[in-house]
């Protein structure tokens, strides 16, 4: 069953598109990594999926509906962790969680149970009544992660999740992703940490100049680049070389 379908999407910030005729899909319970150089279009793709940018061509379906067709269903079908934490200076950690739970219509009793286990997992129990100005970058990121995992949508969209997190935080995040996957949720994750992507992702999209250069399992990618036994790092560097060759050509 397909959860997310991106069909022939063209779009960008100005008239000049960043994404060119982009198509991919994510199935139920799949963890898909989106990999590419700076400026390849990873964040732009994500912004189109979450609906803060509109495609000039093509359509994006989440659980079979576009954002326009059913905004409430579309929005409640995903939760999003942005690359840089976006927090409210005037809300405490607890209030961030409570606001999210309210907005996603979570029952109060379920909220309390999930809150407790997330606080424990991310070691933030003692900071419930703190304001974000007193948090480090990593802790701010943890608030975003906890808010995202508080609700259980069918798709988690995670942009560069590992930057700023301590090793225990990274482990906790991976645990959460794994657990949600087992419950049938899907994950779309953009990252530069290739070793982690290679280890955890079911499929990988290699994005290059707003187009998909190759996609599939590691085996599929190796075949596409004709590099058997290559790691994701090797493939990534190969793609970089292609770009350089294009520039010098």
């Amino acid at each position, binding site marked *: 069953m397909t959860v997310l379908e991106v069909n022939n999407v063209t779009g960008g910030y100005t008239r000049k598109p960043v994404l060119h005729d982009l198509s991919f899909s994510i199935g139920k319970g799949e963890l898909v990594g989106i990999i590419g150089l700076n400026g390849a279009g990873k964040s732009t793709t994500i912004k189109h999926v979450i*609906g*803060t940018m509109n495609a000039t061509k093509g359509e994006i379906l989440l659980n079979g509906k576009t954002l326009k067709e059913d905004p*409430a269903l579309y929005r409640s079908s995903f939760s*999003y962790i942005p690359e840089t934490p*976006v927090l409210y200076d005037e809300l405490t950690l607890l209030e961030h969680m409570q606001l999210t739970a309210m907005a*996603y219509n979570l029952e109060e009793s379920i909220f309390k149970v999930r809150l407790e286990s997330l606080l424990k997992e991310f070691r933030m129990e003692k900071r419930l009544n703190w304001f974000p100005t007193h948090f480090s970058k990593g802790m701010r990121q943890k608030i975003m992660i906890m808010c995202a995992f508080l609700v259980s949508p069918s798709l988690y969209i995670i942009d560069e999740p590992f930057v700023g997190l301590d090793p225990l935080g990274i482990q906790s995040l991976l645990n959460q992703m794994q657990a949600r996957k087992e419950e049938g949720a899907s994950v779309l994750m953009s990252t530069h940490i290739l070793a982690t992507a290679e280890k955890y992702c079911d499929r990988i999209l290699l994005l290059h100049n707003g187009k998909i250069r190759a996609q599939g399992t590691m085996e599929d990618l190796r075949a596409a680049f004709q590099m058997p036994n290559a790691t994701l790092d090797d493939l990534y560097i190969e793609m970089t070389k292609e770009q350089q060759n294009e520039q010098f050509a």
Partner: protein
Amino acid sequence: MNNLREVWSKRFVYYINELQKYMKYIVSGHIAIVFVFVIGAAGYSYSEWLKTAPLDFPVFLLVAFLLSLTITISTPVTLMKNADSVYFLPLETKLDEYFKPALKWTYFSTVFVSALVFVVSIPMLTKLSGLIKNEILFLFLLILVLKYWSMQVEYSYRFAESGKFVWVDRFVRFVLLFIGLFFLLTGSYVLAIAIAFICVMYLVVWKKKMKEVAFPFDHFINVEQSRMMRFYRFANYFTDVPHIRGMTKRRKLLNFVYKFVPYKQQNAQLYLVLRTFIRTDDYFYLWVRLTALAMLGAIFIPMPIVAIIFTGALAFATVIQLKHALLSGFEFRMDLLFPIDSNARLLAVEKLLRMFQFVQVVFVLIGIIIQGQFTLLMLLVPVIVLVVSELTLRISK
């Protein structure tokens, strides 16, 4: 860019443009009109008071106090930026090129305050204390010199001590200026000269100490940032300032208000907006100020018609400014992704403003009770506040 003087000039032009841009809004804003009335009224009462002022009024004490206060506060305007601590570091020995014009601007942009205070005091000094023209002129020139001294000391002190305990230095300068000016005005010239000597020595000490330390970039950058922030915050009362990031405080005393918003999906935006309003200084104090003014109006304005216009205008100003402030903002916020009605924010803001305008009415009512004039017209005041608030909410975008 190695020429620091050029860096200064560029920044200065940008700074002046920035000031002009916001001054336009400030001058045309409603508070400016209030200022004009207040200044006019104050000027009129001052001239009336002069006609009947008692001859034993402590003019010298008052003038010495006001002048010392305005001369003392000489925060340097450096236009420094965050990145300067990195990029100016290799140019540390050439920093003079930058600070000479900076201090010159600091001087000319602040000396006029003291000069203005002095000019306003002239009628008082001539009428009540019998100062003659030459004495006035001498005093005026002296003020120009004292301001220069004060500014140089403040800069050197901040340089030498990285701004630690700058209030102690300010207190010392204030006392020296106050005593010195008082001696001078009362004709104790020897004592005044003695104070002048101490002033010179005080400057020499800090100039010397300043040479022993490295330039405290962080301090001057912080001073400059908070200075610009104050300006932007002030300008923000008149128009939208993109640079501004509101300061927030918990305000624990008001926690009970949050209980009025129970846990359910429809209340998500109200939950957020209520906290944003109460905890963001800019929004909350705007409401407190205008509510306090409305209450004072209800207490002290004897004519009901004037009270109605006054409180009505304040209710309009409260609602229109807060609605605009709570609904504007160009940055991405997580609640934009919430699976709730896209109208929810607007509805929440309207609900919040209805709640707080009701509280404003209660304060106005208390004002009327204090005044004790229970005529029909006076009781119309709170009704008008409610009606104006509601109409503003409905009609404004």
